[in-house]
């Protein structure tokens, strides 16, 4: 009884400990690099203090976030959203229709086996180097993990639920929105997590080779014009960007699969 009011405090304490446990290695690495690089005369490995100064100057004070990170972010989210819609829509159709899925399998297997970067020259040939090419590349390459996981998730819907849907005459939209989609959601999210990482990688690559703009372009341009310190700041920002996106993704996943986590926690509690 008396322990109850202290529960939130105890929870926040364990959360703090968890955060510290996650943070100690990056912090230790940063400190180590700071001292190790402090007297560096190497053109290619400037001292960390200079990189941090430049990072502040370019990205924060100089508006680099608005100029390059925001366009990259919009591009990434648009491409990923296209992949999500495409992957879930096609995956649901192929997951429900076994015959079609078997007929399409050689095509899907072949297409997904092509390393994404190999498509870049073709994409640039047909779609030029602008926004269309960038978005198409991100969407196309990121679709596969979502597509394959959606097929798997939809196929694993309980046969009893299929009978329920049929006997209560649910409309196709209701079957998709309230049965197949939530049933497959845990697997779709697992695929989306992989796709998201793929999307970030493809975004950087297409920006490096495409028309100016974005973090990928910034890094490559800095490297090619021998601006080594700005190049390092770009890589640092890209790392922070990726980490922030991961946190965002996890928050969304928690929200979307709330019932799933609650049910899992419930059945664990019931077993005790």
């Amino acid at each position, binding site marked *: 009884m008396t322990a109850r009011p202290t529960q939130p405090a105890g929870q926040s304490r364990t959360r703090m400990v968890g955060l510290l446990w996650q943070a100690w290695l990056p912090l230790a690495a940063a400190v180590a690099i700071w001292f190790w690089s402090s007297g560096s005369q190497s053109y290619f490995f400037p001292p960390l203090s200079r990189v941090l100064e430049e990072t502040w100057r370019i990205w924060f004070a100089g508006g680099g976030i608005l100029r390059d990170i925001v366009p990259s972010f919009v591009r990434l989210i648009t491409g990923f959203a296209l992949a999500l819609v495409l992957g879930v829509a096609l995956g649901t159709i192929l997951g429900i229709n076994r015959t079609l899925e078997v007929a399409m399998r050689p095509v899907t297997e072949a297409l997904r086996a092509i390393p994404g970067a190999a498509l870049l020259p073709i994409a640039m040939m047909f779609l030029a180097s602008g926004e269309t090419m960038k978005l198409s590349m991100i969407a196309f390459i990121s679709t596969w993990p979502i597509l394959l996981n959606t097929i798997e998730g939809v196929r694993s819907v309980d046969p*009893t639920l299929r009978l329920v849907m*049929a*006997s209560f*005459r649910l*409309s196709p939209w209701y079957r998709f929105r*309230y049965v197949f989609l*939530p049933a497959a*959601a845990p697997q779709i999210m697992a695929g989306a997590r992989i796709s998201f990482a793929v999307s970030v990688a493809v975004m950087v690559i297409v920006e490096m080779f495409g028309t100016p703009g974005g973090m990928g372009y910034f890094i490559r341009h800095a490297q090619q014009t021998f601006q080594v310190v700005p190049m390092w700041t770009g890589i640092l920002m890209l790392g922070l960007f990726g980490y922030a996106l991961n946190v965002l993704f996890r928050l969304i996943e928690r929200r979307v699969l709330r019932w799933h986590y609650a049910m899992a926690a*419930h059945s664990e509690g019931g077993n005790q």
Partner: protein
Amino acid sequence: MIASVRPRHAVSGSEPASDASPILAIRNLSFSYGAVRIFEELDCEVRQGEFLCVVGPSGVGKTTLLQCLAGLRLPTKGGVVLKGNLVTAPPAELAVVFQDYSRSLMPWLTAEENITLPLRSARLSRAECHQRARKALEEVGLVGVEGKYPWQLSGGMQQRVAIARALAYQPSIIIMDEPFASVDAQTRSDLEDLVLNVRQHLGITIVLVTHDIDEAVYLSDRVLVLSGRPAKVLDIVDVNLGRQRDQIGTKSLPEFAELRSRVYRLIRRKPSHGGVPADDGGER
């Protein structure tokens, strides 16, 4: 009690509430998986307001029969006629309660959302959906669990939600596939009485499939006995135990014991002798 074992086609005199017109007719119904014949030439008529139990040993094709009745499966031969229409797809006037409540309810929807999903799909207004869900939950004795998820409820309560979903759909006939097979004995008799009460209250027609002979006799107006490979209708036994039943009183009646052993003998295909007259060797 000779009255309880009259020939099966006789209209039962002690059931004035049952309208004699058939709501559901099973005609020459046969089903086979490839060369394996599951059941053959089943014939039966379910009357308006009647409670019919289909009983038979496991593996006899009861679930397959139920799926044919519900339009979830097409028979190999013959057909099912619901209110004068041949059933070729799940009809709107029929609802199904499945055996495994943990798999027939959607864990991502609350009790109320589970109940209203078919109604919302049929484009009923939000107010109407809510109203029907509330009434159905009241009918099955579950008030105050609207916002709970199925996995937060006990097995018996989950099956009540599944029954409420069928009631809210407002069908003229409900088909139940071993609906009490996955709950404990106490919950089971509670649910049996619940279904009897609901039926009494709403005058709904029910076809219930079970392998439990006691349950079949206790619940029904008539018991359709299915047995053999391929399965055939061995008999349709009239259960003249009246509309009011109770777990202790009804089950200790001598008539109950007679009916029970009669159905049991039919299923075991033992030649009947002694006090119970046999009429299962007739013209079938």
